[in-house]
Every structure is written in C-alpha cells, then in structure tokens.
C-alpha cells in the first residue's frame, strides 16, 4: 500500500477544491430543467437585464479604456513629485469594497454642489442607468490602470524616440508605435473590465439602486428575484453570468492572458 504523504495530501485537497467549485456551478445550472431555464431567459425581465448589463458594461469598459490609456501612460513614462501617493490613491478602488465605493459615489453625486450641477445639466447618476455605468467605471478603472501601466512599462520608450526623430509629433509617435504594441494589454484589460462590469453589484446597488425594469442589471435581477422568491428567474440570471465568466476565461486562455506583450 502506498504511504499517505505530503504529496497525497496536497493532491487530495486540490481535487476536493475542484469538486467544490464545480459543484457550485453545476448546482445552479441543473437546478431547473432546460425548458423552464430557456423560458425564463427569454422572459422580458431577464431580457431587459441582459440588454442593460451589456450596454452599461460596454460603455463603462470603453470609458475605462479611454481614461486608462492616457493616465496609465503618464504613470508609466513620467516621473514627478508625489507619484507614489497619486499611484496609491488610484489603486484604492481595487482594495475598497465596491459597496463602499458606491456609498462614496452616492454622496458625491447626491449631496454635493458638483453632483447637483451635473444633475441640472442632465447628467443624473443617482438611481439611473447612467449611475450603473459610473459605478462600474469607478470600481474597474483601477484594475484597467494597472494592466495598462504594466503594459506601457513593458514597451521600450525608444520606439517613440525613434519615431519622433523620424518626423512624428509625440502623439503620432505614441499612436504609431506604443499603442499598436499595447494591443494585447488593452484587449486583456478590456475583457477583464467588461466581465467585472457585467457582474458588478455592490456599487451599482448603492448608486443606481435596484429598481425592477429600470436599473435592473443581471446581478440586480438575481438579487431582486431571490428576495421575492422567484428562484427560477434568479437562476436564469445566474446562468447567464456563469456563461459570461466562461467566455472570459476562454478568451483569456486563448490570448495567453496579459503575458504576451512585445
């Protein structure tokens, strides 16, 4: 008989954990039969939640890309006093529980003069779909910044130097050399940001609220339907979220994560 040693214990724990995670997922998708699952997925409420989640997460991902590219570029390329402090503050949303970020957003947009001004010119964030976008953006921007910063740091600034001596403005040099070379990083960051946006709950709940058929994203639909005992609808929402995670993981594996950079 083989001795039970350290190796066997670690392997056993590994199998146990795998089974545990697999069981979680399996339990959700097999809880209802496929016919009622399909019916629930095409129900108006879940259809609305899918559309709203897709729309808000795509918009917030685009916002993350457009903000993260210049900001992370400046962090990667320039040195300035207070850089460490700024970098720490920008990292904060990663460590902050989303629900706390959501509370901050609610206070900023709901109670300050700046928030009032934005609402007056038509940018209402509190308890609106726009708030969903803002909540997703706030929670995800830090991660996007980190990915983009390490991407830019991995690209030799001399490409831009050469391009500049050959006639490019600094901006042209960036768009002709560093930006195309950062393609994989941008792609990887976008996939993570998008998938996290689809699943964002805490911050969305605080700023946009949980109003059926108004600010009802997939996670909110899951939460609302669980609260009201509509388990089948909740499971439909959960199944779609699982599907999205699967797609994200697949894209990541195929692209080799953010590891493949020039």
């Amino acid at each position, binding site marked *: 008989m083989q001795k039970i040693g350290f190796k066997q214990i670690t392997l056993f724990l590994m199998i146990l954990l795998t089974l545990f995670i697999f069981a979680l997922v399996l339990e959700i998708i097999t809880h209802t039969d496929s016919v009622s699952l399909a019916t629930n997925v095409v129900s108006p409420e879940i259809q609305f939640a899918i559309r709203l989640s897709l729309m808000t997460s795509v918009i917030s991902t685009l916002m993350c890309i457009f903000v993260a590219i210049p900001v992370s570029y400046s962090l990667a390329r320039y040195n300035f006093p207070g850089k460490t402090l700024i970098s720490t503050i920008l990292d904060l949303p990663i460590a902050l529980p989303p629900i706390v970020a959501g509370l901050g957003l609610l206070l900023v947009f709901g109670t300050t003069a700046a928030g009032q001004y934005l609402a007056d010119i038509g940018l209402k964030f509190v308890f609106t779909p726009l708030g969903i976008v803002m909540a997703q953006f706030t929670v995800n921007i830090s991660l996007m910044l980190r990915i983009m910063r390490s991407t830019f740091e991995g690209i030799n600034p*001399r*490409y831009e*130097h*050469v391009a*500049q001596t050959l*006639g490019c403005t600094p901006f042209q040099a960036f768009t002709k050399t560093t930006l195309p*070379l950062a393609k994989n990083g941008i792609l990887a960051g976008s996939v993570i940001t998008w998938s996290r946006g689809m699943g964002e709950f805490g911050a969305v709940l605080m700023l946009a609220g949980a109003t059926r058929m108004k600010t009802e994203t997939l996670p909110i639909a899951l939460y609302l339907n669980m609260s009201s005992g509509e388990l089948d609808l909740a499971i439909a929402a959960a199944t779609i979220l699982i599907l999205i995670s699967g797609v994200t993981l697949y894209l990541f594996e195929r692209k080799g994560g953010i590891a493949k950079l020039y």
Partner: protein
Amino acid sequence: MIGVKHLEKKLGDFTLEGINLSVKEGEYFCILGPTGSGKTILLETIAGIYNPDAGSIIINGDEVSSLLPKDRKISMVYQDFMLFPNMNVRKNIAFGLNYNSFQGLEKAIIAEKVKETAELLGIYHLLERDPSTLSGGEKQRTAIARAIITEPKLLLLDEPLSALDTGTKGRLRQELLRIHKLKKTTTIHVTHSFEEAFTLADRIAIMHGGKIHQIGSPDEVFRKPNSRFVADFVGVENLFHGKAVVKDDLAEIYVNGLKIISSILRSGDVSVSIRPEDILISKNPIYSSATNAFTGTLTEISRMRSTVKLVIDAGIPFRVVLTKRAYDDMELSIGADVYLTFKASATHII
C-alpha cells in the same frame, strides 16, 4: 555645423555638466566614454527627447533646443535597433517618409527611395521580412537605412555596433565608413570602444561622469591624453606605426627596424598595438612558431596596487604588465636584459 554650448541636464542619477561641443559640417564625430558616463543622455538631449536644463543646441545655425525632435532634421540609431515590430522591413525603412516635408510623397517615389537605400545597405532582399526574423547585423542595417532615408542634417548613433558579434561589428563599421564617405552626413557616434572611435572618427570627445574631458583627433587624444582618466581609459599602449608586408599566412610589420609578426593580414602603412598583458617577459629566450621574440633592456619600473608596469626598450619601447608576484619572482632591476615574447595573434592592427 552642430554646436552644443554650456549644456546642463539632470536626469535621475545622470547629469550632464557644462557640455561644449562643436561638430563641423560633414564630420564624423565620436563621443567615447565608459558605460554610465552620460553619453546616451547627451545624444538624446541633442535629439530633443529631453529638454536641457540650461545651455543651447545649434544645428546648422538654428537654435533648436525648444523644437520638437521632428523639427530638428536629425535621425537616431540605437544600440538595440528599435525596429518597429508591428511593421515589416520595408515599412520600417519608409517610416520617416510619411511626415514633415515628405508628407504626401508619391508611392512610386517612396518605393524608389526605399529600394535605393536598401540597396545601399545590402538589405534589398529582406524588404518584406518581419524584423524579428533578421540577424543582429541585418537589424542594424535596417535601422541605419530608416535613419538615413530622410537625409538628416545630423545622424546620431548610440552605440550602433555594441550589440553585434565581432565579425558583424567589423563589417558594419566598414559600412558606416563607406556610407559616411558617400553621404557626408554630419554624424555623432557614441561608443565605449576606443577601436571603433579610432577607426571611424575624424575627431573624438572623451566623456566621463557627465563631462567632456578632451576633444581632439584620435591621434591627439591617444598621444597626448590631457588627464589621468583619459590616459587610463584610452589605455591602448604599445601602439606602433610601421609598414606591413603579407608573407604566406602572416603579415610582417617593420617598425623602426624591428619585425613584428601578425596574424592579421594587412599590408601598407599600419598601426599595430599589443596589449601590455599579452607580452611575456623572461630571462631566457622562449621559441615557438608564429611568435614574436625580442631582447630588450628594462628602462622603467612603476609599481601599481596589484601589478607592476615595466618599460622595455627593444629598439622601440614596449610596455608590459606583470602581477606583483611574477615581478618579485623574476628579481628584475633597471638595466637588466630580458626577452619579450608575444603571439602573432596578440597583435591588433588599426
């Protein structure tokens, strides 16, 4: 003419202090210095990548220190090639023809210029290749082609040969010389290799610790170093001028009546150098083929920290370095007669 006046720049741990340079039209100018002496920053400041803290940079009469790199009519080649990995060789070479005065240039003219430049560098057959598939020498030829196609007023070369293997280095050095003769582009070439500077430069500036220590022709800098640092850094001792004749598979170089045998086949007027540590000294003769053996008189002994430097007059003065132990074992004194031997392969011909 290129002028750098009282240039100051602080960047991280590096500083440039009061740099003054003037490079003549069409001159090949080398900046020679050890790693970390600030050579690359000087080059990049001239290029406009960094703004100087003080001082001025003049290219062909224009003060350019406030201009963007693109408006300085310069090109730059780096040690690590920096070919754009997202473009093939053709697009890399043609890159500069999309901007500045070249904007809107006809496709046929671009193709013609690329062909001409690629042929000049001997890389015409590589035009459709991806840069990652090229050898080091081919990469640097591409980078040089990309730099000269825009006909810059000033070509900046940052250690262009340092990343190449010895054989490629020698060939590309000849190429640089040939292209410079042909195009006569004013060139500033930064290197840490004395040999490179000596063979290429019309004039050399010795740089160390962010300062220029000496400027002069290679011969001047070599013969009359103005400081201890320059003397040590240039450090090519035992450099003799003579006439070389190739016989069989060896060259015989006649220097002041002495025949030095070299494995480098070169004829005519040459300069030959032998590293002091490559010369063996002994009290009795050592014979072997392909070996240089002379007798001489010990005329000078200078003790360093762990070595001893000797000067032995064998018709021409040879400088020899010994370890302290070896020196003590030999019990030498001024005026002693000794034998000098060194291999034919230990000679360098410049």
